[in-house]
């Protein structure tokens, strides 16, 4: 045994590059890895994401490799969405539930080949996946530290990747994945992301990580490509309307107090639940909920004023608390004050008059405003370039 105590936090394969670029030295712990919350300036990082290109180190995301003759059937039983049409070379977004139909996590499934998949998500739950494998011929491996991953997001990303030599990348459709030779190894590229914009996620052997970073920065230099930290991403994902496990819902397997977890219907993810497919985890509970009604409704709110309504109470017009804000931000591109909230039924129907109670601290003095808010349908930011193939920008 070595006498050396291992570091409390691991470093990602990009750490040497990130440490150099992280001028603010603002670090945080993301699932056991040292990751930056900001490099130089959160706004500049955010605007790089929206106007040119940004690089975000995705390595700490949970990545499970699921292989074997039953891998497809196994995943179809695990998740709420029908995976019948998920072909090799495609990615899908889905949620998965426990027996009570409560969301354990949401994430993406990459079908690499007929019998090989990667499940990518925020939370770790190998234990759940292993138990779910009873009766299936599959093997499940945690590849989180065996794959270095970058999220490359923004309108210029396609052009930059083309310049880097990824020929034909412009033909990659949203939720497609493909492979390119890279140095002595292979680079997997998927047209996916967490910003609601044109963007790609790049998956590579950890040995090649630094080279990938350098080549992206070189190819993207003239486009003002910037590395981004978690704070910039937080604004972008709220603008795009994306949920985050642990922030917008309590992952069911981590719930301590009864009733704090949520079903997909209660998170606005009902579109991911395919009750007509064959048996899947939580199906019966979700069928029952569909019949009897949900306890909560998840809504996106447009809040008056410019103060982010983080964790605010929400009142109905009778001044009764009907819910809580889970995430909130002033989103600069859409120029809106957006909040996500979990409301008790039946509140939160479009047109309901609701009020948020925002507390804010200015020079050691707490103040409070009661702001009106309205339920938004659809995303406040959803550019055409996100969907077009080839992307309509450069």
């Amino acid at each position, binding site marked *: 045994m070595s006498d050396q105590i291992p570091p409390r936090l691991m470093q990602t394969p990009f750490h040497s590059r990130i440490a150099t670029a992280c001028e603010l030295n603002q670090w945080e712990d993301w699932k056991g890895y040292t990751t930056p919350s900001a490099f130089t300036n959160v706004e500049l990082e955010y605007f790089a994401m929206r106007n040119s290109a940004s690089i975000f180190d995705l390595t700490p995301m949970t990545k499970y490799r699921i292989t074997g003759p039953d891998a497809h*059937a196994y995943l179809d039983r695990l998740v709420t969405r029908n995976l019948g049409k998920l072909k090799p070379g495609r990615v899908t977004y889905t949620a998965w539930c*426990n*027996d009570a139909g409560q969301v354990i996590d949401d994430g993406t499934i990459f079908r690499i080949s007929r019998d090989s998949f990667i499940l990518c998500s925020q939370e770790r739950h190998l234990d*759940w996946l292993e*138990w*779910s494998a*009873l*009766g*299936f011929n599959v093997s499940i491996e945690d590849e989180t530290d065996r794959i270095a991953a970058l999220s490359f997001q923004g309108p210029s990303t396609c052009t930059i990747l083309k310049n880097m030599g990824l020929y034909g990348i412009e033909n990659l459709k949203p939720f497609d994945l493909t492979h390119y030779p890279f140095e002595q190894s292979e680079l997997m590229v998927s047209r996916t992301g967490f910003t609601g914009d044109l963007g790609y996620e790049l998956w590579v052997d950890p040995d090649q990580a630094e080279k990938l970073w350098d080549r992206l920065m070189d190819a993207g230099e003239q486009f003002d490509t910037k590395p981004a930290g978690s704070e910039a991403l937080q604004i972008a994902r709220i603008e795009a309307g994306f949920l985050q496990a642990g922030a917008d819902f309590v992952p069911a397997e981590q719930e301590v107090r009864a009733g704090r977890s949520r079903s997909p219907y209660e998170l606005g993810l009902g579109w991911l639940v395919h009750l007509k497919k064959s048996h899947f*985890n939580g199906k019966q509970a979700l069928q029952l909920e569909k019949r009897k009604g949900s306890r909560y409704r998840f809504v996106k709110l447009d809040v008056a004023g410019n103060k982010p309504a983080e964790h605010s109470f929400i009142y109905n017009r009778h001044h009764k608390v009907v819910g809580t804000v889970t995430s909130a931000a002033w989103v600069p591109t859409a120029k809106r004050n957006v909040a996500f909230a979990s409301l008790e039924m039946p509140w939160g129907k479009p047109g309901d008059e609701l009020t948020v109670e925002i507390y804010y601290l200015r020079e050691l003095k707490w103040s409070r405003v009661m702001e009106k808010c309205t339920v938004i349908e659809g995303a406040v930011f959803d550019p055409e370039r996100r969907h077009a193939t080839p992307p309509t920008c450069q």
Partner: protein
Amino acid sequence: MTDTNQFDVVVIGAGHNGLVSAAYLAESGLKVLVLESSGTIGGAARTCEFSEGYRVSECAHLVYALHPTIVRDLKLTNYGLRYAATDLGTISLGSDGLHVLIKGDSVSGDISYEDADSYRKFRSKMIKFCQVFATTLEHQPPRLMNGSLGDKLSLLKLGWQVRKLGKTDMQELLRIGSINIYDVLEERFDNQLLKGALCLDAVLGSHTGPRSPNTVLAYLYRHVGETFGFNGPSIPLGGMGTVVEAIAASAKSSGAELRTSSKVEKILTEGSKVVGVRLETGEEIKTHTVVSNADPRATFSSLVGYPQLDTEFSRRVHNIRMKGNTAKLHLALDSRPRFTGVGESETGNRLVIAPDSDYVERAFNHAKYKEYSDKPIVEISIPSIHDSTLAPAGKHVLSAVVQYAPHNLQQGWSQASDTFKNLLIDLIEDYAPGIRQQIVASELLTPADIESRFGTTNGHWHHGELALDQFLMLRPFPGMSQYATPVHGLYHCSAGSHPGGNVLGMVGRNCARAVIKRGDR
């Protein structure tokens, strides 16, 4: 599938609980089909001819607690249920010819007056505690979470049964209910033979030793029959098989159909609902209600299949504690065996080799490490003494339940079976010198044999340990205790559900009542 094959209910397995269920269901007017995989009905409660002219109860060999409700409702006496002997005593054998005879509330033989007196008090207290459990036998256990009013009432009733004992006894039940039999016996008795025999009662059929937690509960469970008319074990005339034959006859007369050599391979479902069963032959039988008499693990992992169930549910099925530890020895003897110090008139009792409580605990030690005991504990019955139909005139059969013989034996049973059998015969010979020369034929059923013959996972006699964590509303596991399952139309009626093992029959009855009450065919 053909509509001509349609039944209201298909019962999988013609064990005693399956047949009891079928009888109640048929009696209520439903069209019932019972499918049994082997060539004979009865499951672990049948009589087999293991050598020409010698017949013996193949697995369970004594009736401790066949519930009078079932005997009455199914008119089993009219259908041929007879006992060759009832209310047998238990003789705890000592190697030097010393022994004690436990019969009812008295102990005689080589025992002090003080211990005999203590036993009287001990037994009367235990019977009082058994009453508490006896009241739960006839009902489905209450749900703890999201229970209905009925659930809350039956929970209150259980609480009231405990409270009704009075303050002192209630405290005593709560004190000893979850602890081990070894300590409780140490508090009361000096006599080793007595303590050994009582320890055996508390561990038979389980993966526990006398020092394992909640073995007092298991002891109470074994004696629950003494609250409704049994005053010791009984031997059915013609072996255990006649009990199930009587149940089967009752079921048939109510209109149930029985098919043997019909192994069900799969319970067919559509959208979490039962639509039928498929036999090994490929034949499919249409039904909307299936009652499974297979153990809970086999029911859910093989017959339904984990992929048709949710993860947490599957995990609970997978984690049911059910390590089979019990073997069965059959000896065909050319004459009546003689046990040292035991009078001829007494040999017909239940004879146990468990000479002291440490002996029993030591026997268990081996099982923890996947080895069989070098000094096992044995429960012997020589039914031919009471029932001349079992062996040719003047000859006898000896039936012995033996522990510990772990299912997951390190070296594997195919290697060890003969050695273990010889070890057992040597052991019995210590108490019955010369018995080896009397043997005409012999047969050992290891847990592996019991698993393959009766289809019980790990060869576990009770389809799951009978312990607090798998008792009442926790049997077979939390979240599934009222016979219905997450698969709509599938019910479970084996000993793995409440109230559990031994030839009691109440699981079958309670399950049938649950099916009839739901009425959702």
